[in-house]
């Protein structure tokens, strides 16, 4: 059952721009140049209950705008959204009672001057969470993320990763059915990233919470999401299973270690990514050329020390989709 349904969603905004310099600054006092940015150009999307949906796309693709509209904090120009049975921007107050949001590292909902626990108790009152549930959840989340002692220090003294973990807890204290995470792992160290991913994974499994997250970190996607949606320039350019996406792009990577430099490599259906004294890196389009032929060609022309054949990184695939 779909809990979020988006139909032909469009959103554009007006921004100002001016040239550099003091004179231009004065000019812009009188006459301003407007520019319309089309952030979403007709997005259709369905999200199933219990899913972890990965929303990816380059900077400025419209991911954050989509999240903001889905959270009910921005009105779209046209199109419709039904989320948990609500229209997010029209029934905002009732709707947001049921969702959790982390708007990335620069828009923390924790109060800067206070320890996180103060914000937690504040949220408990705001979302009317019963004391017993609140205590149980808080200690469980804190244990999972390893932030027990952190929550008593003022937010301004925490590192980015520590703050992000505290922010995640804040977004989940009222046990929302649907959670939006806008870049929850950006700027976070590897160990903390791992903790955050495990946390999301566990919460999704145990509490059946639906997550919609944006990220630039493909390991987040590979660890968490079965299904991904790729957005570019306000349009959805891919919506489907991550595994399907990998299958669709049939390129293989060959990393060949050479004993000595050979002649330049050239073969139908192959792209040389790098070739030097001791190294040859090839991308093979398996639809046009078989790995077998490539290997035979390599063995007959080069003195090979080692060969590694691998699937392309998901990042490479995404790059290809962006370019389309």
């Amino acid at each position: 059952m779909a809990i979020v349904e988006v139909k032909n969603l469009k959103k554009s905004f007006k921004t100002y721009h001016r040239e550099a310099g003091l004179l231009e600054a004065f000019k812009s006092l009188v006459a301003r140049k407007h520019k319309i940015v089309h952030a979403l150009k007709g997005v259709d999307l369905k999200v199933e209950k219990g899913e972890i949906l990965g929303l990816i796309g380059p900077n400025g693709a419209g991911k954050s705008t989509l999240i903001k509209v889905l959270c009910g904090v921005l009105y779209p120009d046209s199109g419709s959204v039904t989320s948990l049975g609500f229209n997010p921007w029209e029934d905002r107050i009732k709707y947001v009672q049921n969702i959790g949001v982390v708007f990335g590292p620069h828009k923390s909902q924790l109060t800067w001057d206070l320890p996180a626990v103060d914000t937690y108790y504040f949220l408990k009152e705001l979302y009317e969470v019963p004391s017993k549930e609140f205590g149980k959840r808080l200690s469980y989340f804190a244990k999972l993320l390893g932030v027990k002692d952190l929550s008593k220090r003022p937010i301004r003294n925490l590192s980015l990763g520590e703050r992000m973990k505290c922010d995640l807890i804040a977004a989940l204290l009222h046990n929302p059915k649907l959670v939006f995470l806008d870049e929850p792992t950006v700027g976070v160290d590897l160990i903390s990233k791992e903790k955050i991913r495990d946390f999301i994974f566990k919460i999704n499994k145990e509490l059946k919470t639906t997550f919609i997250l944006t990220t630039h970190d493909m390991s987040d996607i590979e660890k968490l999401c079965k299904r991904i949606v790729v957005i570019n320039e306000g349009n959805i350019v891919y919506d489907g299973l991550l595994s399907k996406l990998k299958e669709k792009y049939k390129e293989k990577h060959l990393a060949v270690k050479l004993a000595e430099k050979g002649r330049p490599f050239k073969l139908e259906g192959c792209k040389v990514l790098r070739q030097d004294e001791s190294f040859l890196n090839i991308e093979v389009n398996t639809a046009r050329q078989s790995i077998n032929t490539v290997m035979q060609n390599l063995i007959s022309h080069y003195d090979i020390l080692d060969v590694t054949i691998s699937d392309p990184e998901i990042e490479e695939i995404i790059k290809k989709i962006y370019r389309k």
Partner: protein
Amino acid sequence: MIRRKTFAYVKLGMQKLLAYKFEVATFFFISILSLIIYYYLWHSIYSFTGQSTINGFDFTQLMAYYILIFFEGGFIWTNLDQRISDLIRDGTLIIDLARPTTLMNAYVSDEFGADLLVILIQGTPLLVAGVIFFHLSPASLLSLVLSAISFAVAVALSITFVFLTSISSFWLTRYHAVRYARNTITWFFGGGIVPIAFFPSVWQKVFALLPFQHFIYTPVSIFLGYVQGWNALSMIGMQIFWVIIFYLLIKLAWPKAMAKFSAAGG
């Protein structure tokens, strides 16, 4: 359950204020310092003119007047509008939009909590000094009751007015100049610099048409007995009238402000 949510914000506002002990200490001393400055300023004015009363105020009465004005200042000198403007500018307004309450409830209650503490912290030493040195006391029990009501309405008046002006920051990305103007106008036309009785009568008629004297001057003059009985009640009526006007203007402007915020991309 609105009350529970409101109280959550009031408490948060208090906690934020108490986060910095130096700031709390500054609030404590700054009002006393202002009082000392006004004391010596007016002391020299009274001895220079050689008069014992100026426009109906003798020196002790005038000091009592200033003490009450400073006491009320805790609600007038608010930076609620500046905070809202900052939230709009850096886009963090969306955090409060993603919470299950109206923004007006969120910001007004938060600010109310902080202001209440400021009043306690800086008002207490002022009132103590007033009672000991300047015979500060209400003109009568009725004056005390009426001025308390008037003061409560003045708080509502001040907060609605500040919230209303802060809505302009949805259009003006930098709000600083508006805030400066608001503070100055409220303070001057409200009788914060000198009592309104000090102005020529033509000016006083203009002042009566404006809402600003009801922020500060009305509760103070009821407390000190300059306005009594039915006059006091009609002044309170005027205060309530202005609260309703400001509230309606907020209701009118708010949807437009949200549309503007949304059009700018949040």
